[in-house]
């Protein structure tokens, strides 16, 4: 279970996506032992005397089979994975049944109390029964692993598809307006035109990046600055900014393109419709376990508001993305508070997020 999550990005050689799970670890092994013990109880209830001795003997036998099989699968998993699904599974099946046969033959001698086949002959009927049981159970277990893997793959591809669908896109308006700025500046102020091209490229690169990936907060804030620089050229002194970024740890991450679309929204709905513009305030605070962001913009009177539908699209989009990444631990609100419109974002400070990135990369 969950190897894709557990796999360290550096450990590329370890096969993480094979039908047989990785059994070389304590939690997996304890589950194997538990399942083995349940099998013992089934066998015990199904026939024979209900005695402590019977329990002990059957446990000894089953755990031998289970543990040697787990050990064999653990040791050969990488090799089996290279065989491909059908051949790998077949070899695993043969391995498990042969080990069972060997353990059965051993157990037969232990029960007989002598190594001499002449004094006590091998109980072939019992061994054939045990072999039959082993075949059935090995087949069922492999089938179970296979179904489970299919399910996991399906979940992962669905997750990836969702994140990609929610990927933040550059508004066409912004693109063409920026192009217009460049065209306007190129003759009169080539240096500024050059920096607009650079800023725009960075924004585009970010929007083409892996959806759902995490970046350092510093990088996201830098993207915001690049974005705002372009808007400032367009809107001039109509766009006023007040940034208040508190202290935060260097390694603090944020889902890529979370703050920039919120700023874009604030400018689009709060500044652009106002003939005299206004102020966008961005506050960022970090406490021990979460990050708090607050963005405010003026709320234009109704007759000035952009009449376009989908005002809430960007916010809903980011909210869904946060939901995928943090389940319910992140919160995004957007509402009017008197004369200003306030967008707040809170997300937990955690280092687990690589899992989703891994999932979407796989």
């Amino acid at each position, binding site marked *: 279970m969950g190897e894709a999550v557990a796999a360290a990005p550096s450990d590329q050689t370890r096969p993480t996506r094979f039908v047989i799970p990785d059994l070389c670890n304590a939690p997996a092994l304890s589950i194997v032992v538990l399942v083995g013990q349940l099998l013992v109880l089934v066998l015990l209830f199904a026939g024979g005397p209900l005695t402590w001795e019977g329990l002990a003997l059957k446990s000894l036998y089953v755990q031998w089979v289970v543990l040697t099989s787990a050990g064999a699968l653990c040791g050969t998993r990488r090799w089996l994975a290279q065989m491909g699904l059908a051949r790998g599974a077949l070899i695993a099946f043969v391995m498990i049944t042969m080990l069972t046969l060997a353990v059965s033959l051993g157990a037969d001698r232990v029960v007989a109390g002598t190594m001499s086949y002449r004094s006590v002959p091998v109980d072939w009927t019992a061994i054939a029964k045990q072999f039959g049981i082993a075949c059935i159970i090995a087949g069922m277990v492999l089938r179970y692993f296979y179904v489970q893997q299919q399910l996991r793959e399906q979940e992962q591809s669905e997750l990836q598809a969702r994140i990609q669908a929610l990927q933040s896109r550059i508004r*066409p308006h912004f693109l063409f307006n920026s192009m*217009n700025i460049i065209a306007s500046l190129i*003759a009169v102020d080539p240096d500024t035109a050059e920096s607009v091209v650079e800023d725009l490229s960075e924004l585009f690169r970010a929007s083409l990046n892996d959806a759902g990936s995490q970046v350092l907060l510093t990088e996201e804030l830098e993207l915001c600055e690049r974005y705002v620089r372009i808007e400032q050229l367009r*809107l*001039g002194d109509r766009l006023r900014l007040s940034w208040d970024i508190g202290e935060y740890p260097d390694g603090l991450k944020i889902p890529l393109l979370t703050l920039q679309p919120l700023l874009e929204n604030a400018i689009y709905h709060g500044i652009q419709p106002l003939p005299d513009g206004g102020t966008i305030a961005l506050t960022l605070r970090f406490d021990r376990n979460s990050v708090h962001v607050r963005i405010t913009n003026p709320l234009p009177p109704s007759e000035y508001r952009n*009449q376009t539908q989908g005002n809430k699209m960007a916010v809903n989009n980011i909210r869904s993305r946060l939901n995928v990444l943090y389940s319910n631990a992140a919160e995004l609100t957007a509402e009017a508070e008197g004369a200003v419109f306030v967008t707040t974002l809170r997300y937990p400070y955690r280092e687990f997020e690589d899992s989703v990135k891994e999932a979407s990369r796989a």
Partner: protein
Amino acid sequence: MKVLIVDDEQLARDRLVRMLSDMPGYEVVGQAGNGMQAVEKCELTQPDVVLLDIRMPGMDGLEAARHMAGMEQPPAVVFCTAYEEHAIEAFKVQAVGYLLKPVRRDDLIDVLGSATRTNRAQMAALARDEGSQRSHISARTRKGIELVPIDEVRFFQADQKYVTMRHPGGELLIDETLQELETEFGGRFIRVHRNALVATKYIEGLERNEEGQYEIRLRDVPGGIDISRRHVSMVRRYIQKL
């Protein structure tokens, strides 16, 4: 040819000015940064053609063009847009000139060469397509075009020939029908009589005068406005909901 350049972005205006300065036969007579300014400048400078950005704060380009179309000598209008899929479709339908930003030199030359005057019907159709409401109503007076914010209009009343618009500054005659106004400002105005539309936000009450005629009282408006028998129950229901 006299050209008025309207865009809320200084850089965009600068570029158009520069492009036109290289083209013989064109003279930039003014610039404006929003729709209101554009209408004022248009009256002042009487341009032959207006290069009009659509998306502007306050009054947008589509509305400014509507007011310009009501002028005595309406200019030809060329809309400029960065990206407005719907509007572009509408421009094609209405055969109105438009330019895409960043504006290409060749396109500018072409469109200025073929720009024609737009009329009120075209502009009204454009606005309908966009589903947009005007922020102002324009009236042609001796002083020129007068713009009254729709928020301040108390009522519209029709007599045989004209529609009168009542606002705090007095009364103005406008060249529109009550039917058109009702369609455009449906939520803000309510029909109380075949010949009257009143602003819902200024309604103070309903009363009956000595002759038994129902009247509606509006804030800052002395006297009442007749409610026709046909509309009484509807108006009463509306007031009760307030």
